[in-house]
């Protein structure tokens, strides 16, 4: 098996999808000739032809609108929004239109689209490149939201997303693109959407996260084990809409304590939703309040302040200790 970075795993998934099904189309700004600003689509236009992998004009609303129309006609569009901060330009087509299509037509039409987009902090991008805007989509019915945490996860989840019957937003954390390698099968494989994964078993506390913060969570769990002898169970949500409540609740029935970690600013996001569910389903299993680790409710900060703003392992460890002693 090949050791791939996440960007290579994504390219491998796109290539497998294009190979498997002629209806799959890959497009967006700079994805054709130059192979994408991160090289996610490198060589795909040359290999599959410009009719299937192509550069679009610079207009996100038309990228997303093309995807809607193509999907209505039986194609499977995989559209790239060059950076997540540019998604505002495409949001009507995504959540105002595609996400509502099945509902408003009573099932006559539906939009099996994947919108891929890089996002995430810690990589010194200018404004509106790094922001964690997933909350806007998690609040919107009709579109699924996936955030892979590793190369293996990315390929399997992306292939599931592409062959899913509904619109899926696929969020690729830039920090994970090239930071580490992992064994990734060369062949086609899928991983289930809508299912969280226990990435590290434990019995004292459940630490729930997604995306790049899963790495931070695992490190924090290791520190807590070394320093306090704590056994922390780490859950990677993988799909943040719809959220897999069962895996979370099962874990909490065992550990009785929880901390939720997210990179997005604090309020009304995934962490809040996870805590609400724990509250509804497992409050009598808890031995203390569920705590949250998230940056303050500001816009994603300027490059020179990213490190201070983003959650750190130490902060997570601190919250784990708070939760243990509450």
């Amino acid at each position, binding site marked *: 098996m090949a050791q791939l970075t996440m960007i290579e795993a994504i390219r491998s998934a796109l290539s497998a999808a294009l190979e498997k099904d002629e209806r799959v189309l890959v497009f967006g700004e700079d994805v054709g000739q130059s192979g994408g600003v991160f090289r996610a689509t490198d060589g795909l236009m040359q290999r599959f032809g410009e009719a299937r992998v192509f550069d679009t*004009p610079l207009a996100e609303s038309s990228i997303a609108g093309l995807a809607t129309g193509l999907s209505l006609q039986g194609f499977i569009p995989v559209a790239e929004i060059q950076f997540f901060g540019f998604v505002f330009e495409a949001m009507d087509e995504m959540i105002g239109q595609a996400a509502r299509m099945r509902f408003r037509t009573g099932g006559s039409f539906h939009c099996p689209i994947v919108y891929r987009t890089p996002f995430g902090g810690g990589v010194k991008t200018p404004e509106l490149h790094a922001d964690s805007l997933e909350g806007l989509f998690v609040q919107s019915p009709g579109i699924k939201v996936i955030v892979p945490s590793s190369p293996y996860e990315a390929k399997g989840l992306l292939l599931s997303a592409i062959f899913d019957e509904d619109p899926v937003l696929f969020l690729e954390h830039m920090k994970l693109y090239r930071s580490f390698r992992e064994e990734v099968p060369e062949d086609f494989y899928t991983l289930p959407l809508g299912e969280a994964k226990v990435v590290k078993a434990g019995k004292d506390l459940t630490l729930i996260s997604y995306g790049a913060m899963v790495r931070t969570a695992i490190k924090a769990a290791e520190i807590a084990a070394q320093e306090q002898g704590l056994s922390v169970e780490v859950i990677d949500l993988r799909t943040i809409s719809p959220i897999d409540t069962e895996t979370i609740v099962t874990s909490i029935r065992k550990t009785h304590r929880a901390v939720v970690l997210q990179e997005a600013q604090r309020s009304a996001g995934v962490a809040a939703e996870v805590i609400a569910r724990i509250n509804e389903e497992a409050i009598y299993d808890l031995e203390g309040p569920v705590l949250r680790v998230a940056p303050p409710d500001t816009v994603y900060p300027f490059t*020179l302040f990213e490190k201070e703003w983003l959650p750190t392992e130490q902060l997570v460890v601190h919250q784990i200790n708070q939760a243990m002693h509450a």
Partner: protein
Amino acid sequence: MSVHAPVRELGYLRVIDEEGQVTDSSLLPDITEGHFKQLMERMLFTRLWDERAIKWTRQGKLGFYAPVAGQEAAMIGSEAALTMDDFILPSYRDVPQAVWHGWPLYQAFLYSLGHQHGNQIPEGVNVLPPQIIIGAQIVQAAGVAMAFALRKEKRVALAYIGDGGTSQGDFYEGMNVAGVYRLPLIVLVQNNQFAISVPVEKQTAVKELAKKAEASGMEGIRVDGMDVLAVYQAVQGAVQKAKAGEGPTLIEALTFRYGPHTMSGDDPKRYRTKELEEDWRARDPIIRYRKFLHTKGWWTEEDERKVETKAKDEVQAALDRANQFPAMSMKALASHMYAKMPIELADQLIRQDTKKEVK
């Protein structure tokens, strides 16, 4: 791969040719010798600053940077045709215009490094910080222009955009609304032939971007964007028209960026040929304008050296000043989220790990 050459067959306004010869003396701007020289000084200064900025970015001394070499005539010529109370809405590449319009250079460097103070535009300076969201500046500029019209002020809003940006809905929407209300708006498209890797002919099926003005009922002009006097003249005319209440203008300046799209990993070899690059470099705005000034006897070796020294010193001083600027604090950043900080946000700043404020 795109092999298109500089557009020569289509008509455009040009005042001096590649040899610095005046094409039609009636087109020469009616400005002083000092003003003619200032255009050169600013273009040269900008080129030298760009070279340093590229070097510093590679060395990690600057952050985000979009090179400007090749586009100096379009940038400097257009800004020079404004008065200081006209308002500029730049994109990420239009840093020189904003700086020549009053944005202190050290703040432009802080913007590059990613410091909030970079974007704290001094009172009375009529620019917005560079726009990242392509197209957003055009609709906003229409609003700024409307404010000038409502207050009956003789001012214009000038928004910059690239060839790629003309595909955005916001571009059409801004022009459309400016056409309806005959707003004092100038949209300057720097057609540098590529939007990152995408050539302009994949951006639009229309051959002249200036034609996009027609559907908004506004005038569209095409100029040689490597000719600083042509750009100056076109913008100057548009300013006069706007100030006379005669509405908006779209100006397409044909130009080229010599360098990569930004310093964040773009490789032009993936999408354009060396020949194309050389073809454009042969039309260099600075070389051409220097020849023109020489024919007039307005530019000496000493003038050249003076600008070089000034650029070197001022650019270095600006970087030093940027580096000495105090670091941001969470509290200061958050205090700019709302006019008055919500109690909830203030509470969040007390980090749970230390129970102390993040500095």
